[in-house]
């Protein structure tokens, strides 16, 4: 819970020395409450007050980091129940499982797919984040060897999975510098797992049988000084697991219930026995509050849809992703190359430019400022209409770059062709295909 200015004031030295840049402690407190100042600006604030203020300012769901460097994954920190209320912040990590009872080839297959399956979309790289290494044999040496292999062959964040603390320690020895997530601390092993988490400085996941047991476990861990905790409620039926996710999120946000104020981990790999089913279960937890989803394996056809789901649910609903308007040269166009026009919704831009590239026909793509709206949406909103598009084309300078006088508009915007011709004078407006997938075939036929 945020503190009010008056509550903060009570914790300050009340000497009004002015060193923080404002004349009084009260003014400083007000600024702090409004988020306009940093506590560090006051050199005299007591350690006690610092702790209290930090505690009060802590987000209702702790941010937990797993892994290091470029591959560091941040989960938690969410502040809303529904994405339209603000936005969901930290996309859930997607983890792929390997176990020490898999053959070398099977492990290699999992690791290869983990490395190979990545996709460029709207200028972002989409891929899985973590590898979950599980000990089934209870053999510390085997576990350590597998963890080392995963660490050496990938830059993935790692989840170490075993309930046996001595096996866990073997895995930690091999990978602690990668800051792996330790999974799980249970009622039986919590003390020793907590000890390991402290010793190696790694986040720790608890697994309980229901939310009461989970709460007891997390309370025990935090009382012992651990902060970076992740929750597995233990449920493996879809309905119950969904319910738990919802209650955990609500508990943290609506009740400020600290024992549940942590990101969660869900295990579709233990809830189905087929990759397609697992991907669907994972999508439920992408929508509803999962912090990590663990899959038993990935294939292009299962990972790609899941990555799309994650991207969709975690885009900021307040502002569409937009590209800058202007002329884009694709494939080194010349004065006889076709001119195409589209809107500046990022998704549209990337799809259309991708298709033009695929066609291998060099072309000019003129992007009109539609405030980030898609073609039809912009048309309906009056932003992709004849005079506006015509004006943008003229201003863009494209007319000096080509010898011909033809422009291709999106098939869905066919209705603007009359107005656009009028606006452009002696230019010819060609109505292109509706779906961008047909652009390559269309461009191959195009001639100036």
């Amino acid at each position, binding site marked *: 819970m945020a503190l009010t200015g008056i509550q903060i004031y009570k914790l300050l030295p009340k000497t009004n020395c002015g060193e923080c840049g404002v004349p009084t402690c009260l003014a400083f407190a007000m600024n702090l409450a409004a988020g306009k100042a940093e506590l560090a600006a006051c050199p005299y604030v007591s350690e006690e007050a610092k702790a209290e203020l930090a505690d009060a300012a802590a987000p209702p769901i702790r941010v937990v980091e797993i892994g290091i460097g470029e591959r560091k994954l941040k989960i938690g920190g969410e502040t809303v129940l529904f994405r339209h209320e603000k936005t969901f912040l930290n996309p859930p990590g997607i983890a792929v499982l390997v176990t020490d009872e898999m053959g070398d080839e099977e492990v290699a297959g999992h690791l290869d797919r983990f490395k190979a399956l990545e996709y460029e979309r709207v200028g972002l790289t989409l891929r899985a984040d973590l590898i979950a290494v599980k000990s089934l044999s209870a053999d510390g040496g085997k576990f350590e060897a597998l963890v080392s292999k995963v660490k050496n062959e990938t830059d993935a964040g790692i989840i170490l999975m075993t309930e046996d603390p001595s096996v866990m320690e073997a895995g930690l020895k091999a990978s602690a510098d990668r800051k792996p997530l330790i999974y799980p601390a249970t009622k039986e092993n919590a003390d020793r797992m907590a000890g390991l988490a402290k010793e190696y400085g790694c986040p720790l996941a608890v697994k309980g049988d229901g939310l009461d047991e989970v709460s007891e476990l997390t309370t025990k861990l935090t009382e012992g000084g651990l902060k970076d905790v992740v929750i597995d409620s233990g449920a493996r039926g879809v309905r119950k697991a969904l319910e738990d996710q919802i209650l955990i999120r609500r508990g943290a946000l609506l009740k400020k219930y600290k024992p549940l104020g942590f990101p969660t981990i869900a295990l579709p790999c233990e809830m189905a026995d087929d990759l*397609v089913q697992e*991907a669907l279960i994972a999508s439920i937890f992408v929508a509803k509050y999962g912090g990590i989803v663990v899959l038993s394996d990935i294939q292009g056809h299962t990972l790609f849809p899941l990555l799309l*789901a994650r991207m969709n649910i975690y885009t900021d609903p307040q502002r569409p992703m937009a590209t800058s308007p202007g002329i884009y040269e694709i494939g080194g166009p010349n004065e006889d190359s076709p001119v195409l026009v589209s809107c500046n919704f990022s998704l549209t831009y990337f799809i259309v430019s991708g298709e033009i590239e695929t066609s291998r026909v060099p072309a000019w793509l003129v992007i009109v400022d539609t405030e980030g709206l898609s073609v039809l949406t912009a048309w309906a909103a009056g932003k992709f209409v004849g005079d506006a598009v015509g004006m943008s084309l003229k201003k863009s300078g494209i007319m000096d770059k080509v010898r011909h006088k033809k422009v291709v508009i999106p098939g869905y915007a066919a209705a603007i062709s009359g107005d656009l011709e009028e606006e452009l004078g002696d230019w010819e407006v060609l109505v292109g295909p509706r779906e961008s997938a047909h652009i390559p075939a269309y461009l191959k036929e195009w001639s100036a």
Partner: protein
Amino acid sequence: MAFEIPKISYNGAIKEIPLGKEANHMIVGGETCYPFYLFEGSMPHPPKIAMEVYDAPPEDWPQAALEPFADVVQDPAAWAQKCVASYGAEMLALQLASTDPNAQNTPAEQAVEVTKKVAAAIEVPLIVWGSGNLEKDTEVLKMIAEECAGENLILGPIPEGSYKALGAASLAYQHTIAASTPIDINLAKQLNILIGNLGVPDKCILVDPTVAGLGYGLEYCYSVMERDRMAALTQEDERLQFPIVCNLAKEVWKVKEARISEEEAPLLGDPLKRGVLLEAMTALLLLLAGGDILIMRHPDAIQLVRGFINDLMAN
């Protein structure tokens, strides 16, 4: 301290809408909680899946989607029967795509014929969906309403531009309508008010919020549906308390990633499973956002989603 479940107080419920012919009514709606939040409310009628049938052989479907229906695409009535007999379809959706002036522009009379044949071939509730061209849909759906009087078809899309003509026709000839607005909760509410003012009874109204496929605008539809349910269930917004229909299959299967071969895009994996999963995942996310009726295409995707409806409802 034991964890006390933070419940939300609902003060509204989704209306129950009877679909199909009177003798074998099927009911949708009735929810008193957010989708599948069964720990604090009920969903007396699990969401339904309507299988697509096209009025003419589809020209642009990828192989994966076409294959199960290859033997029946020439004959919409046989196609409809196959959906029921082979795939256990609980509802059907006849897509009048060929009526589109930008496609074959088939005349309204022909659409009426096809609709009658399909309606006669099956017992389950039938959705009849226009091409999306306002003028043509108004003409076609009006004629269908008249000629199929008393069938209680579900006619859609009924946007603001045609609600008067089509609302009146469905009222006169006893059909249900899918009130259609472009992903905007205020427009949806407004249209429901207008349709109500025409005299169309509440039990004949469904909402089509407009949907998009995974990766192609789904996030907007997802949030509008969540807001719709929030207003209906927690803010007593009576004019939004209608079941939601999601015409999703045609959005999913038109996109590149649902069509491209494995040779062209090896990282996208198996094209059949990929298409099926894109459809099933779109459907599942729309169910979580509040969908009551999903219009779907591929039998495998439908089977997967049915399984999830069961799992999410299971005790």
